[in-house]
């Protein structure tokens, strides 16, 4: 098996980035007319859209309403043309269900559910193009959509992925780097208190390496937070100046 050089000796990755450089982030708010809140996020070539409905009455009997807090439900779906090889099933497959569950558990601790008992928030995630770090892009996009919908949250949750390539710790892996032999860790944090809300990794690493990449991912998430916060402020100014009810 040929060993691809993921980082050149000069420190450049396959797409020209340095080891701890994150990809370009672009986002847009309020893109759908019928959802209560929506957002589009682009992290490099990974493109995600999220629509949020709620708080509203609990729709299905299979998830009974809780008397003292609200529920959060997430549906994760990937467009069949989002990956290099066409996906036959966009939702309902095991990977999709696993992602849905991860996102649901993450956001149930982020959203202040005690403020809307017996109600639910529905989050629908659609991945339009998938080029690595899909879970982190989804978390960031969901945070923005929840902000657009005006859902109360403890803090703005941000996520970032990190890993090791050719013995160098790297941030924000793309698809090729994610499928390489090294570990891939996704971390969701609250940027102000640097508390880890969720963490996901499927590889085997020694403990000191794990601490290293976790810390790196938290730093990366903070960088993402700086950018997203700026975007939110700009949108806020736009709404105020145009006098539009949000």
């Amino acid at each position, binding site marked *: 098996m040929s060993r691809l050089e993921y980082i050149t000796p000069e420190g450049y990755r396959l797409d020209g980035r340095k080891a701890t450089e994150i990809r370009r982030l672009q986002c847009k708010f309020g893109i*759908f007319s*019928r*959802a209560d809140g929506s957002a589009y996020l682009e992290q490099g070539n990974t493109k995600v*859209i999220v629509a949020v409905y709620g708080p509203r009455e609990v729709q299905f009997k299979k998830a009974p309403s809780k008397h003292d807090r609200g529920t959060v439900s997430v549906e994760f779906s990937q*467009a*069949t*043309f989002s990956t290099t090889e*066409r996906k036959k099933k966009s939702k309902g497959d095991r990977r999709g269900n696993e992602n849905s569950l991860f996102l649901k558990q993450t956001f149930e601790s982020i959203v202040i559910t005690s403020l809307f008992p017996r109600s639910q928030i529905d989050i629908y995630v659609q991945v339009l193009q998938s080029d690595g770090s899909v879970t982190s892009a989804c978390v960031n996009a969901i945070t923005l959509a929840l902000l657009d919908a005006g859902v109360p949250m403890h803090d703005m949750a941000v996520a970032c992925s990190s890993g090791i390539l050719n013995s160098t710790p790297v941030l924000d892996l793309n698809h090729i780097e994610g499928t390489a032999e090294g570990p891939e860790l996704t971390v969701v944090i609250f940027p102000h208190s640097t508390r880890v809300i969720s963490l996901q990794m499927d590889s085997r690493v020694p403990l000191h390496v794990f601490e290293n990449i976790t810390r790196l991912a938290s730093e990366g998430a903070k960088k993402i937070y700086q950018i997203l916060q700026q975007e939110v402020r700009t949108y806020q100014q736009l709404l105020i100046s145009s006098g539009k009810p949000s």
Partner: protein
Amino acid sequence: MYFPIISPSERNYLEQGVAKGVRVDGRGRLDYRHFTLETGLIVQTNGSARIRLGTTDILVGIKAELGKMDENTNEGKILCNVECCPSASSEFEGRGAEYLNAELARALERAFAVSTLLEKKKLVIENSEYCWTLYIDALVLDSGGNLFDALSIATRAAVFDTRIPKVKIHHGEKGDIEIDIEDDPSQFLQLDVSSMPLLVTLTHINGYEIVDATIDEEQCMLGRITVAVNKNGELCSILKGGVGGLPVKSIDQMMMASIPIGLEIIKKMDEILRQEKKSQLPKVGFFSS
């Protein structure tokens, strides 16, 4: 269903407006909304297009895959698939949009079935039993009414944008296959969309027909006719929707009215696609416009 709730007074206002020839947004009965069309947005597809008609937002991606030809045919395959996302309406979550998806996909396939016969022959790899299968996947991201028409425009634009690599297949000694892909990125196979039709939907409200109904207008309709019109002004397929019964004379009128509208939209669309091809601007940011 997935329609918004509309009150009796709103319904009355809408119907009376249509009778007088002035719709709620100020359009005449046979006026189309302004639409924006972009192609080449998703890099991992062979072709893609996005249309925004009012608040209707549809993204189409086309992927080409190599496979064995069906027996006794000498042509490739074109398969359509439509998925309505929950971002368009919360009723579309899970399997809620199953029937709507099937209806839309079938309407598209039926419209394109005859017109793409010649193009399917282009999809065959010469001197082999292999052919390209084009998977047309449409995502309805937001709905503001008139899904059939918007879908057909976006699909036609995506097929126009599709580039398939040129491929040669050799049979090795032991029956294995060798595939040679053309190295030059400027050499690719493109399909001709000039014979592809567009769907035009005419909705019957209160005795009058309107084109390009918004979602509120669709709530007030008695029935609708969706017609596929090609650039020669020929009708390629007809589909009746809605629960009410339409008088035969009204159906005749609707079909005749759809032809000049279809021709105009085809002309407009071809102009947009020609401009896009000429400008070759790099697409930065999906929702940049």
